[in-house]
């Protein structure tokens, strides 16, 4: 395998890891605040649909991105209503949101565009195109570093760069700001936060809003960033759950989330190129094994065989202020 092929696989890894990463960080904010969120999948799907639909109708991909975020925020609001205001079961609420998005996107897409549950093809003006970073063309011929810069680092859409920048931002917010401290506290011991005079509800709702924004961007990346050209029914295809798996894999920490998502993205990239694995290790690896690997690895991690994954302590429990 030559350098160029490797770079192509890694390039695909970065692209495929981006929606996982955004959804994973979204889940991180939510779960660190003590709200379990298995509705990441549904929110991504909602974001993907509305971003593609609005981009197709208005021709503006930025309006599409905004609409995708709004869609994910609306679904987040349902989750907040159910799990914070009415103190319902967060897991059930997440399941409901996933189904809601899965059904509603197709129903609306069919009645709106009449194309069997997809949105119209997005032309070049109405989707995110790859950015050529400064100097990429000029440095292209420099040995080794040139192709790495040109193929791997340059040429992604703006959303990819945003996603990767959100990782240090998340770290900073979580560990270096007062808000982050309170957020982590509310996921571990909400009663203490309440006693300190900080609103548990407010913090949790804020986490859910962040979660909505990030899943909305993740959906927009799936549907409106090259090479994607529109929304297809069920296009998230379990990515929300893989993001959840990555979150557990990363033990709810931002930098580790980046690596987990890159790893799972790499597995997805390999799945697209079964010929490569055969060429390198001389064995035909089943595509199904690759697609199941993130889930298997997560179960192994959860089983505590490779370090124990301990979720935020107050996760999943509604906070009752007074008894």
């Amino acid at each position, binding site marked *: 395998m030559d350098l160029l092929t490797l770079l192509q696989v890694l390039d695909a890894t970065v692209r495929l890891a981006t929606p996982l990463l955004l959804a994973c960080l979204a889940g991180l904010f939510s779960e660190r605040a003590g709200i379990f969120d298995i509705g990441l999948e549904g929110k991504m799907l909602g974001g993907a649909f509305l971003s593609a639909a609005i981009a197709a109708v208005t021709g503006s991909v930025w309006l599409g991105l905004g609409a995708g975020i709004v869609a994910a925020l609306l679904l987040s609001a349902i989750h907040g209503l159910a799990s914070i205001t009415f103190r319902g079961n967060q897991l*059930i609420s997440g399941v409901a949101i996933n189904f809601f998005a899965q059904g509603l996107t197709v129903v609306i897409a069919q009645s709106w565009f009449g194309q069997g549950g997809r949105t119209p093809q997005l032309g070049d003006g109405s989707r995110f195109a790859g950015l050529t970073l400064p100097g990429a063309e000029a440095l292209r011929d420099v040995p080794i570093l040139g192709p790495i810069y040109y193929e791997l680092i340059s040429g992604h859409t703006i959303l990819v760069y945003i996603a990767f920048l959100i990782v240090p931002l998340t770290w900073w917010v979580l560990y270096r700001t007062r808000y982050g401290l309170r957020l982590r506290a509310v996921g571990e011991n909400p009663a203490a936060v309440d006693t300190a005079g900080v609103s548990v509800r407010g913090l949790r709702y804020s986490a859910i809003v962040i979660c909505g924004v990030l899943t909305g961007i993740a959906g927009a990346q799936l549907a409106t960033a090259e090479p994607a050209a529109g929304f297809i029914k069920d296009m998230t295809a379990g990515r929300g759950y893989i993001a959840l798996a990555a979150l557990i894999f990363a033990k709810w920490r931002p930098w580790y989330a980046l690596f987990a998502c890159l790893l799972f993205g790499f597995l997805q990239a390999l799945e697209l190129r079964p010929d490569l694995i055969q060429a390198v290790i001389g064995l035909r690896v089943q595509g*199904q094994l690759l697609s199941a690997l993130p889930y298997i690895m997560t179960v192994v991690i*959860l089983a505590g065989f490779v370090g124990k994954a301990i979720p935020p302590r107050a996760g999943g429990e509604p906070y009752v202020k007074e008894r």
Partner: protein
Amino acid sequence: MNRMPTWADVILVPLVSLLLAAFFSAIVLLAIGENPWEALKLMVEGSVGSTYAWGYTLYYATNFIFTGLAVAVANHAKLFNIGAEGQAQLGGLGVALVCLFLPFPHWSIALIVAICAGALFGAAWAAIPAFLQAKRGSHIVITTIMFNFIANALLVYLLVNVLKPSGTMEPATASFPDAAHLPSFNAMFSSEETVRFRGAPANVSFFVAVAACIGVWALIWRTRLGYQLRAFGHSESAARYAGISPTKIIMVAMLISGGLAGCMAINNVMGEAERLVLNSVEGAGFIGIAVALMGRSHPFGVFLAALLFGFLYQGGAELALWASIPREMIVVIQALVILFTGALDNMVRAPIERIFNRVGRPPKPERKLEPAE
């Protein structure tokens, strides 16, 4: 605070939740320019209007009874089993293996062996998440989700690479031999003059499902194990203090749950398709969550809720056929039912409780002195 009367808890609250779900479904239909009333008439006609329609409704209901019971049993031990989908897929594998490779003299023996195989495979698939929850504290919701995906990948692999007869393109097993075919309602209830249930997939498994409802009821409310299960579900620490082993309860509850989900395969794999196809479960495992929530985890409630979802499923298929409403509308309705009966339960319950408290409260004693005007 006064408690609500039982009838309000088991009938009124689910009914109000259901009405809310129906109301929002109607709004969705209005929004896409369809007439909800016309849609409802089409659904009723298509799902209960003839024995053919009933044949489909009851077929779907059979699937949902099994998965609904599976989720319900786990619920009683306060375990949320999202993995019924994967467990039912594995159950399908078990049923397919015995039907393909064992020679049966009669369908009744085939049915009994298939029930055992389906239950065994389903239970085995539930056993790993159960063990991890009981022994390592891994959250059962996450592990069962992961196991759904692993089951899916496993089934794709097996169907494409191992079980597919050579020379065919479709990833499915060969058809089962004749001796493993279950009698359909058509064969059972048609007399010489009148043909009933013609071409409908409902089959003898429906009665197995009804028997399973009775069995689960007896298990939960009439046995020591059922008592331990419910005690564990209400309070783990109290159950532990009473000498009930959490490991045992988690394992047993999940094994029964997985077994019930696996049993679904006698209906869809053995009774209907008569071979194992890709994605044979078609989301019935997830509908089981809605069914169990609606039915308040009681077998009779599960039975009614499964009938309702059978009606929705078959009615939804008719809608897709006769009106320009996509089949995914069922998924939306399903989501709304889960949302209102499950997640937003308190929203529905609290106002009703308040009304009962106000009505049921004894009248205040008369004040001696009226405040001056």
